[in-house]
């Protein structure tokens, strides 16, 4: 069976090997701490299931401290200059798209095709994480195809991966840290407090205000947690089930998706959803880390209003 751990090993290996270049990168004023950051991050990926949680927690704190106090900087990456890129672009043309398109195509094909194949008694792909495993396999095949098309060495692709990894920098770790925070918030009962607050505020005889509180609550709590999936059980149990579904007798099927969408409006608005909002800003080299949120907020606010009206209309109907 191809387990998801193999994909994590691959990611860890890429991070760790690229850190070896960083340790020797004299253009980086903090090459030792930067190298340590990526080396530890890579090792944590590989060893996460082997190390006790407490030890892994210590490693995570070390990673945070290295990045949090300015220890992670950028260096020089031996990029191809514009003339070189133009020369190989003219030579390769649209063939350059083949590996890029192979990644999504093979991922989808892997999810659809390989997930039902068994080798002996075991499924070929880890059934709990089919998409991730398929993405990993697709990335490896695309890489081999890219080596052939561009006639490059593995070392070149590793150096190029390092260029992109260090462009993202410490933001790469942020989504995982936010997920940790979400877990701690949930176990401390932050969600219950938010739902109770919302319940205090709304007049109980009004369907509209119940719908309003549920949708705005979903968006607001998603902004705190960075994840609508974490907000949905709390806000639905706190507001939608007792009031909208229980008291006003609205069909659960009609409320669910619109409530979840209200949460997604919150996802578009919050730096806590770092993997969607902060990491892409870093990856695209934007000068403001909030630039993606700024591009999203009008859509988010309008759609939140649409969701409130829609849920109210659907509930009345």
């Amino acid at each position, binding site marked *: 069976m191809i387990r998801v751990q193999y994909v994590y090993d691959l990611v860890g290996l890429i991070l760790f090997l690229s850190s070896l270049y960083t340790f020797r990168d004299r253009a980086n004023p903090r090459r030792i701490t930067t190298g340590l950051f990526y080396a530890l991050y890579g090792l944590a990926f590989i060893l996460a299931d082997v190390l006790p949680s407490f030890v892994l927690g*210590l490693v995570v704190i070390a990673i945070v401290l290295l990045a949090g106090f300015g220890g992670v900087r950028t260096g020089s990456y031996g990029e191809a200059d514009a003339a070189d890129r133009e020369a190989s672009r003219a030579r390769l043309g649209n063939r350059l798209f083949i590996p890029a398109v192979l990644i999504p195509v093979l991922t989808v094909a892997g999810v659809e095709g390989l997930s039902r194949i068994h080798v002996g008694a075991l499924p070929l792909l880890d059934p709990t994480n089919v998409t991730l495993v398929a993405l990993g396999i697709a990335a490896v095949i695309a*890489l081999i195809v890219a080596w052939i098309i561009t006639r490059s060495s593995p070392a070149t692709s590793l150096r190029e991966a390092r260029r992109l990894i260090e462009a993202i920098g410490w933001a790469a770790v942020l989504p995982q840290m936010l997920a940790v925070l979400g877990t701690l918030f949930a176990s401390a009962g932050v969600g219950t407090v938010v739902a109770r607050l919302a319940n205090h505020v709304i007049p109980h005889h009004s369907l509209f205000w119940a719908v309003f509180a549920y949708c705005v609550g979903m968006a607001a709590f998603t902004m705190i947690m960075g994840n609508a999936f974490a907000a949905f059980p709390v806000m639905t149990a706190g507001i939608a089930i007792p009031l909208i579904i229980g008291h006003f007798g609205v069909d659960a099927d009609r409320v669910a998706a619109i409530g979840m969408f209200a949460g997604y409006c919150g996802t578009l608005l919050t730096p806590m959803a770092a993997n969607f909002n902060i990491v892409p800003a870093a990856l695209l080299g934007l000068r403001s880390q909030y630039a993606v949120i700024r591009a999203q907020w009008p859509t988010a606010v309008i759609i939140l209003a649409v969701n409130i009206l829609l849920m109210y209309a659907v509930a009345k109907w």
Partner: protein
Amino acid sequence: MCLVYKHALFNARTRCCAHPHMTGGISVVLIGVLVVIVGFALRVNPLLVVTVAGIVTGLLAHESPYHILSQFGAAFAKDRYMAVFVATLPVIGLLERHGLREQAQRLVSRVRAATTGRILNAYLFIRELAAALGLTSIGGPAQMVRPVVAPMAEGAAEAAYGNLPQPVRDHIRAHAAAVDNVGLFFGEDVFVAVGAVLLMKGVFDQFHIHSTPILMGLWALPTAIAVFVVHSVRLYLLDRRLRRWLSAGPAAASSSPGEGVNS
């Protein structure tokens, strides 16, 4: 229904009061949230903010440092999936080195009808439709936006207006990333067998409320369509904004995006 309602309320109440810190007042539990808001507002490094907020929240909930650190470790291990896109970076980086972005720009500049807004609109359509069919792995900031979509969107603007000032470039790129998110989020719930719909069903099952995944997907459609319409209008406005900034000459272009970038 009434029975269900009482059951839910009862559950919520017992959960509240069984928690020792609830009775102590709302403020204590929310201090972690406050740390995050203040930290982000003061622009302290987000990694530090988040870590401190996590530790504070854990300590206020009377958890031991050992337990808090274990939670950090366990959650890190569980959420490694968020960084799996790193596995695609060797391919993307290599292709960029050989001119992938330039080729994407070139391809677009030969299509006269292509504008930044229309390209992003086409990508929005593909991304949202694919997500609605359960194909969420088509797209992504590392795999599609950085190497292909953003260069195409920038290329269309360059073909029309010449060299772009950096703030305008950033603005277009931010919109490319936004389209990727918007399409993914609001297409996803239409598809029945995906995490979101199963999660919703799971929550209702807990409270013994009947729900039907197909119907939940169906009621996601109006919002999915509304999102496409609203965001398409915004992309049309983006085109108009680019025309206003860039056809007025380079001086106006470098001054106006700073203030207009919010809209």
